[in-house]
């Protein structure tokens, strides 16, 4: 017994040392307001450059209190749900909630200081590629469709868009349903918003997936062209339900597997060798 206790004590000690080591390593060094703004906000917000996907943030500290901003940035949807009038108005104006941001109060204050300092002029995302002229070229649409489902890989081998995103379009197979459906994204966000998000994803899951695998401006341009085409042709598609096909296909293949199991072991012993003994015992009880 003594031996067991020492062992568990040691185990707990090791675990706690490990955990504290991790705890010390995790807090990232506070980034400057400018860096964080470009990384997290620039895809959708400008500073004095007009409305993009989200509102222009010039003078935001005059319009809202700091406490309101601190609460809003971390979870806009929760704030709208709680009945905050300003958050609800923003949701109504832009049509979709801003994603929750994984930032600290200090980060937000640094960003606000950067915004108050004028944000270095125009604003917008870091090197957001130019929007394609409407209508997009057929070559771009085709390349975009291939990039979207992976037939042409991204230069830095990032995952294809359809890993997580679905679009209603017959040119590509049904996409994933981990993230938002993108059929009408172009209508909602326009070329600047769409290309800014693709070039500099502000969502944690997408950011991690493309870490160190940024898309090139040409790739972003082709994808935006494809998404514009998808939004325009939405009504003309006859989409296939991939979810149910997966269910039916999977079940069918399982039945084949079950037959295989039966066939491979068709000469198996059906009953335990001592089945007769067991039966006798049950009867005699």
């Amino acid at each position, binding site marked *: 017994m003594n031996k067991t206790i020492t062992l568990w004590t040691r185990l707990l000690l090791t675990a706690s040392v490990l955990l504290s080591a991790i705890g010390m390593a995790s807090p990232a060094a506070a980034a400057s307001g400018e860096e964080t703004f470009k990384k997290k906000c620039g895809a959708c917000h400008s500073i004095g450059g007009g409305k993009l996907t989200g509102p222009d943030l010039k003078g935001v500290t005059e319009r809202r209190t700091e406490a309101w901003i601190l609460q809003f940035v971390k979870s806009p949807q929760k704030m709208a749900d709680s009945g905050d009038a300003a958050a609800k108005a923003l949701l109504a104006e832009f049509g979709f909630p801003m994603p929750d941001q994984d930032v600290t109060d200090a980060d937000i204050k640094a960003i606000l200081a950067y915004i108050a300092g004028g944000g270095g002029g125009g604003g917008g995302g870091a090197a957001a590629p130019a929007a394609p002229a409407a209508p997009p070229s057929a070559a771009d649409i085709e390349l975009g469709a291939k990039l979207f489902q992976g037939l042409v890989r991204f230069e830095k081998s990032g995952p294809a868009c359809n890993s997580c995103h679905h679009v209603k379009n017959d040119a590509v197979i049904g996409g994933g349903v981990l993230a938002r459906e993108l059929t009408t994204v172009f209508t909602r966000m326009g070329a600047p918003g769409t290309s800014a998000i693709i070039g500099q994803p502000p969502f944690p899951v997408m950011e*991690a997936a493309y870490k160190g695998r940024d898309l090139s401006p040409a790739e972003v341009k082709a994808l935006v062209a494809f998404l514009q085409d998808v939004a325009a042709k939405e009504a003309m598609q006859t989409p296939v339900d991939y979810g149910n096909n997966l269910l039916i296909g999977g079940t069918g293949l399982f039945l084949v597997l079950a037959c295989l199991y039966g066939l491979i072991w068709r000469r198996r012993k059906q009953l335990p060798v001592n089945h007769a003994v067991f039966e006798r015992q049950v009867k005699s009880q």
Partner: protein
Amino acid sequence: MDASNLFLFVGLPYIAFAIFLVGTIYRYRATGFKVSSLSSQFLEGRALFWASVPFHFGILVVFLGHLTAFLIPSGILAWNSNPVRLLVLQVTAFAFGISVLVGLVGLIYRRLTNPRVKMVTNNMDIVIELMLLVQTGAGLYIGYAHRWGASWFAADLSPYLWSIFLFRPEATAVAAMPFAIKLHIVNAFLIIAVFPFTRLVHILVAPFHYISRPYQRVIWNWDRNLVRNPASAWTETRPRNN
């Protein structure tokens, strides 16, 4: 990232792996002969076949699939870059997932209803079967409702798992995943943590050498007809060791 996510996706994996390692080594050293999964094939065989075989082949393929996506995510992404190959992979994985579920439900049913199997069942057998049921249910739901898992696993979860193993935990993306995926991940860590205390330890002592070992012939060095004849004296084959 808030404290609960930090605990579930950074703290818990390390606690789980620590318990797994120390617990398994301790169990093997303390009661080495009990590192196995007590077979109940002698007690019941017919239902066992239709539960154990689908379960084991299913879980082998599903587990190796997860392992491949963890070890060579770029290979999986390259394979999935062709939509037809992606569909083939997903449907196959889903079929083996169903195989796991059907087998597991069969095993649980058999364990709870067969009086002879009940006699050799301990509490941890039930606990681990229920944990596996949650895991399989969540896995199939994810496969259906959050497709295409093979691709986003390679893109998001493989880097997360590597970050854990390389002691540079980075769980922001996982913390933002849908509930079913978080459940699948947390339950996986819990299964790893209880592993040493359950019949799952048989995974570590699977007799893989049976595959390559020469087959064994069993030879009786006596006349079988003579032995079976009740009239013959049994000194013929009298055992010498008892």
